[in-house]
């Protein structure tokens, strides 16, 4: 019998990771996960996400939802236990704001990973400046951010997850360094808590595997993906 929920994903994707954790937190465990080869996209992926042709693609019955942050909101509204977003509209606006900001920063960090020379340095520098804003904003705000309920993971934390786990891998793979623990004490502390949270730990892709993958991406990005 076909399952009610299907998730098209890719093991190394920080976006897919968000959805997996959200589903687990909501107790939606009996779903079909399909690993996509993003270098050789399936007809189904192209059909279900024709605009962006990317994972994650979230299928709930007849409904198809794309874009990971949008998927998180859909999941939060459909399965209301263990909320991802805070209830207060102002806090929700703050969570959405910083999540959006984080997505913009991710582009720069990724460019620092795959570009070389001056372009790499420029992106790394701009990324570092942006990251300082996050460090500054969340100084003094301890614990898990914007998550209601003891031990719950929040929307914003899932949005920031890439900084806390993927970024150190990208730094190593792409030979650039931003996350100096002296400059970013808040983020570094948060990182440690994050990767040790049981729900998170279970869903993080293995670091050594990621390193191999992102090293390759760093070297061959522009031949692997036509610009």
């Amino acid at each position, binding site marked *: 019998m076909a399952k009610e929920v299907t998730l098209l994903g890719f093991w190394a994707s920080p976006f897919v990771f968000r959805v997996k954790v959200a589903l687990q937190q909501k107790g939606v465990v009996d779903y079909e996960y399909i690993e996509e080869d993003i270098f050789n996209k399936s007809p189904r992926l192209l059909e279900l996400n024709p*605009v962006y042709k990317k994972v994650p693609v979230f299928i*709930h019955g007849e*409904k198809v*939802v*794309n*874009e990971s942050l*949008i*998927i998180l*909101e*859909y999941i939060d*509204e*459909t399965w209301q236990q263990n909320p991802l977003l805070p209830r207060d*509209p*102002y806090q*929700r*606006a703050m969570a*959405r*704001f910083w999540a*959006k*900001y984080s997505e913009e920063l991710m582009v720069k960090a990724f460019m620092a990973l795959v570009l070389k020379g001056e372009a790499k340095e420029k992106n790394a520098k701009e990324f570092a400046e942006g990251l300082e*804003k996050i460090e500054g904003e969340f100084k003094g705000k301890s614990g898990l951010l914007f998550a209601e309920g003891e031990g719950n993971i929040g929307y914003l934390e899932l949005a920031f997850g890439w900084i806390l786990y993927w970024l150190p891998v990208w730094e190593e793979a792409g030979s650039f360094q931003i996350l100096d623990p002296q400059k970013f004490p808040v983020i570094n502390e948060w990182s440690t808590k994050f990767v040790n949270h049981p729900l998170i730990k279970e869903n993080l892709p293995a670091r050594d595997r990621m390193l191999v993958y992102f090293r390759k991406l760093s070297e061959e990005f522009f031949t692997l993906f036509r610009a």
Partner: protein
Amino acid sequence: EMEGENEVKLHGMWASTYSKRVELALRVKGIPYEYIEEDLRNKSPLLLQYNSVYKKVPVLVHNGKPITESYIILEYIDETWQNGPRLLPQDPYQRAQIRFWASFIQQQLFGSFYKLISSNGEEQEKAVEEVFEKMNVLEKGMKELLPEGVPEVDGNNFGVLDILVTATFGPYKAHEEVFGLKVLDPEKYPLLFSWVQKLNEIPLVKGVLPPHDKLVALLQFIKQNDLKPSS
């Protein structure tokens, strides 16, 4: 929540499409607000304080708390003032679809608009192609989302997509006049075009969109200044 306890201020700019989105939302909801016009060449200290990350308009200040990023402001308004017309439907899937297209308009469509007006020669020709491609995608997406065509809109029946389409395309005649390019082509994009015609007839919209001549003058000024080499 009592009406009298709400202090709502909007820092905006008369020609800003993003600022207009928020004005439309406030008016649809019937929320009284104080409007503060910002001179973008000389931003107020208050604006810089409220939006220290982007330093941009619009900023909505509700009881002293600033909210920035126009789409986020729209959702904030809808969630905070639950009386009056809803800007978003209640159904999670419909909400997801609207958010998807709002994001598309912002990231993809506006992205290609900016490329268009900031490039020239061969690069600009490519940018034009890209704009038309994105418009195609949007037209197709709206056709699928609204299989019965555009529903009737008026001052009481005005949602987030209506707001985005109005703010983006409402002043299309001014854009055409200044940039000499017909983006909102009725033959290529009949649904979007007819939607904009409907929207532009509504008093709510007429009351918010910038005056045509004033906007043309500003866009001409911007266009002419960008042609000069930057120091």
